[in-house]
């Protein structure tokens, strides 16, 4: 469970969000510049909010009033950024095992077979296709035994065909591994298909929040940020 009470200022842009995210799969939906990635960065500890608090399963990750700001390596978060950022000097296996902790429950066998990357383990990351890179990045994040998985537009950079193939992997992770997921996208169908709950952002504030069934019922109105793709 993530409790967000955030204020982030960046030039003219002000992000102000107050949400409790308890569902298994939450989608942050909105057009680019609405503050979705900024929220993920703040949760991961890669960007310091100007005020507020972030708690994960009751543990303070950030709390301005109490002077708490855990460094990223103590937050137990799996982050797959939009640019993937696989380590170019390590092969797939060493990428995937980079964050694995001793005594963790998930094994490389489990993650490798769910994401079908077993055959890729000894390859260099330069030899991977777009979809393979996505799955390896996902495996790398999962192997660090995160309490929550942050996915930033995991399907934005891949074509329609690849989307159709990767989405099932994401759903498998969501269903089989029971790791809560916070998923950023600006694609309506993806949002509806993946989420238990959808939070719609526009220019730094939450303009709507509800179940994906309710979200599907919203009529397409080009002026409505919920309808933007």
């Amino acid at each position, binding site marked *: 469970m993530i409790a967000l009470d955030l204020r982030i200022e960046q030039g003219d842009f002000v992000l102000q969000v107050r949400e409790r995210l308890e569902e298994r799969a939450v989608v942050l939906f909105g057009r680019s510049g609405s503050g979705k990635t900024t929220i993920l960065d703040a949760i*991961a500890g*890669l960007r310091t909010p100007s005020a507020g608090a972030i708690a994960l399963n009751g543990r303070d990750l950030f709390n301005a009033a109490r002077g708490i700001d855990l*460094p*990223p390596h103590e*937050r137990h978060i*799996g982050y797959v950024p939009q640019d993937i*950022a696989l*380590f170019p000097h390590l092969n797939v296996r060493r990428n995937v095992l980079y*964050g694995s902790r001793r005594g963790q429950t998930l094994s490389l066998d489990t993650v490798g077979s769910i994401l079908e990357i077993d055959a890729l383990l000894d390859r260099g990351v330069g030899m991977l296709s777009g979809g393979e890179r996505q799955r390896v990045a996902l495996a790398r*994040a999962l192997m660090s035994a995160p309490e929550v998985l942050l996915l930033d537009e995991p399907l934005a950079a891949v074509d329609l065909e690849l989307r159709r193939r990767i989405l099932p992997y994401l759903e498998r992770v969501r269903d089989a591994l029971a790791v809560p997921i916070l998923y950023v996208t600006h694609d309506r169908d993806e949002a509806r298909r993946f989420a238990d709950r959808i939070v719609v952002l526009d220019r730094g504030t939450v303009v709507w929040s509800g179940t994906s069934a309710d979200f599907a019922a919203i009529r397409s109105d080009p002026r409505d940020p919920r309808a933007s793709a």
Partner: protein
Amino acid sequence: MNLWEITAFTVVTALTATALMIPPGLFLAWLLARRRFRGRLLLETIVSLPLVMPPVATGLILLLLFSPRGPLGRVLASAGIDVVFTWRAVVIAMTVMGLPLFVRTVRAGIEQVDRRYEAMASTLGAPPLRVFYSITLPLALPALAAGAVLGFARAIGEFGATIMIAGSIPGVTRTLPVAIYTFAETGRDREAAILLGVSAAIAFVALWLSNHLSARAGLRT
């Protein structure tokens, strides 16, 4: 001390100096490339100072620091370690004069490393030191090698600071550049010419290697 011994002595002391540059140089390069702190510009200036100060002046500062009555020399003397006019002084002069080149090259290399990789490593649970040696350092390795070669080349050519703190004692502190100067001064032109060739060859190979490595690191030189 024959010419071969002079060459060997110079190469060995320069290699020692290069090894000594690496730990503090890496730390300084990382600090300047990746941290924002008060006094950063001041530190940057101090680190680069030996590049632009007359080497003889740097040598004089070292002499004052390491002479048996100097603040560092006194401590070392009480531990039974003589510095001034020994091979140690040669190594110290080489290290101090080579360090700025090493730091500048490695710093540029670290700045080229995409910070997203470091950020990802930290979200995967790696503390800053592990991020440095498992991500930053390997990705900046060509720059590190280029910096080490440049520092080594600078150490080989060190003259001004060496003559101040180590002098020109045959068989004890006489390095290539110092020997060239001494031979030329005393009319031993043949020896001076041979050592000139040797030092030109070493400098050429080192620079070529450094440029090659810098090109691999994607640095402009």
